[in-house]
């Protein structure tokens, strides 16, 4: 499948995935503690499969971290 270009966590990424859930697998992100957003809009865990990615999308994948 032809790859599309995305920005993932601020870095360019060429991927074959066409939905957000598949993208996480393709990039080896694994964990039920991950939060995702595309173009500044939160995509909840249950909505990732149905979320269609488009070239140029800016994807954020975040994890719990220490904070004050």
């Amino acid at each position, binding site marked *: 499948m032809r790859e599309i270009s995305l920005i993932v966590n601020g870095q360019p990424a060429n991927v074959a995935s066409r939905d957000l859930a598949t993208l996480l697998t393709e990039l080896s992100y694994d964990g039920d503690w991950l939060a995702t957003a595309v173009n500044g809009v939160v995509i909840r865990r249950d909505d990732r499969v149905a979320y269609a990615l488009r070239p140029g999308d800016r994807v954020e994948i975040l*994890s*719990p971290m*220490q*904070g004050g």
Partner: protein
Amino acid sequence: MLEVYGKKLSSRLILGTAQYPSPEMIGEAVRAGGACAVTVSLRRESAQDTAAAGPGGIFWSMVRSLGVPVLPNTAGCHTAREAVTTAQMARDVFGTNWIKLEVIGNHDTLQPDVFELVEAARILCDEGFDVFPYTTDDLVVAERLLDAGCRVLMPWCAPIGSARGPVNLDALRSMRAHFPDICLIVDAGIGRPSHAATVMELGYDAVLLNTAVARAGDPVYMARAFAGAIKAGRTAWHAGLLEPRDFAVPSTPVIGMATFQ
């Protein structure tokens, strides 16, 4: 017992989880201080780390094992939009409506951008979040935050991480007097247990701190010290403090003194 957004809390100390010498020490400090909640954040993590149950997964597992409520923050956000998105992501991961709302307006002082803060608070309250806004001691801003739907206010007492303690006691005193029925939590600037005791003596409901414990020579002992100071300050406030006087007043009765001449 302190009740916040319908939840009864086990103490009046909220601890941050950053800057500790080790992840294990976070748990030890939380237990030693009897913290009623802990703050957490969301950050980018590499795929390799998450695949190997890296820092994020290990940290989250550790936090869950503490058995205390989690207060996610929006630290590092500079606009209402960033903060709202971060809060929504936090709710998806942490499964709580609680959010410590931070919208930073200045890189040097880390003081809140109160205009963006109020805007973000309004949006998040409308979406059902229980917002804990990190704010200044400005009464008008506080009013706006309450109008937006906040039921808690978290004024700073000094810049984040400065350890300077309450630099404007009059402002904190005014805030307490102006909002007698609102939960007020001092957030940011606490450096010593005596600082925490001081704000609790003013009638504040709780203290949120991180650096003063995490960067102490012994974080576990310091957490215990803060717990004691917070309890002492709260008890003193209940007891009723003696107001300062301009002149000396003898404590021993002067009536009945013997005459030797």
